[in-house]
């Protein structure tokens, strides 16, 4: 008996349709955008209180239940907060050779000593708090970028990006790490968030 042994070809015409369906399914269920936000470190859990902060080295920001912002004893507009914070950190009262502030006696002695405290009340709204955090980080980023550009010719963010890239080799990473640490050392972020006082 002579049977036909030729295997029939599978029709692949619908393959494209199947793949398209899968593709559309993934497009609908997946999201490309990655989250972004403000990174902060919470303080360690300990009960000791910090004593001996000179008043000039502390920049106190309070936000009340009505979302009014008070900085160093005066109610201020949100628009001038970043400028105020920058002036406070970069004041350069004593032996700070890279600061460009005016060096008054009322603002911080040195960026390394400058401490910013944010106080909130229970009814303060969260977006306002985030905005204040954003302005403080903005002030720090601005100052760090300025020094980074002056010393190494690139903004800090670019160095950080390169540092986290996989293809950067070890030697370069080591160098970048040193550079980043130098900048962070110049303007360390010291942000206090004292616990809300019951009221």
């Amino acid at each position, binding site marked *: 008996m002579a049977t036909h042994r030729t295997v029939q070809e599978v029709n692949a015409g619908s393959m494209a349709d199947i793949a398209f369906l899968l593709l559309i399914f993934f497009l609908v269920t*997946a999201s490309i955008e990655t989250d972004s936000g403000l990174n902060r470190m919470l303080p360690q859990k300990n009960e000791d209180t910090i004593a001996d902060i000179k008043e000039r080295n502390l920049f106190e920001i309070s936000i009340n239940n009505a979302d009014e912002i008070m900085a160093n004893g005066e109610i201020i507009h949100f628009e001038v907060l970043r400028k105020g914070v920058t002036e406070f950190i970069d004041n350069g009262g004593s032996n700070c050779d890279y600061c460009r502030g005016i060096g008054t006696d009322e603002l911080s002695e040195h960026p390394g000593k400058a401490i910013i405290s944010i106080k909130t009340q*229970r009814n*303060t709204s969260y977006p306002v708090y985030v905005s204040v955090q954003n302005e403080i980080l903005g002030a720090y980023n601005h100052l760090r970028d300025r020094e980074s550009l002056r010393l190494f010719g690139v903004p800090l963010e670019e160095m950080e990006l390169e540092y986290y890239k996989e293809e950067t080799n070890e030697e370069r990473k080591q160098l970048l790490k040193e550079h980043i640490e130098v900048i962070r050392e110049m303007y360390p972020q010291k942000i206090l968030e004292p616990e809300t006082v019951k009221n």
Partner: protein
Amino acid sequence: MIKFNNFKSVNRNLPAISTASLPDIVFILLFFFMTVTTIKNQNLMVENTLPKATETEKMDKQDRIIEIFVGKANSTHNAVMGNEARIQMDNRFVAIKDIGDYALQILSRMPEHLRKVATVSIKADVGVKMGIIEDLKKELRSVNLLKINYTTYEGNVFENLNAPR
């Protein structure tokens, strides 16, 4: 000499375009999207419009993130949960005092080398008050999860202040 006559012998009928490689192309597209996207594995049970900020940093490594949503229960759940701000972790509502336990549970599911760099992403709605955020931070501090991220949208912060609350 070049013989122009040769052209006349070329078959003028266009051959049909082969679509045999079309599935391959589509599959490549498919794999591309499968790799660059992340699938949402959380069902949002709370209202979640994030505030805006400019000085943001990207969190591109999804594997080391503990997500905490804060907001009013959304329309499907507010009949039961009421209109107060609630906290959602891992597809369920969590009471404030249990946050630490849940966070540690999620942390223990992570591979060991990631636990040190785990970040808590706080996704709080614009309508939330600071009270609940303070409590949340206190709980996180008590379980020593100190790296936090206030997750926001990119945008002008001034819009936060004028937003209807």
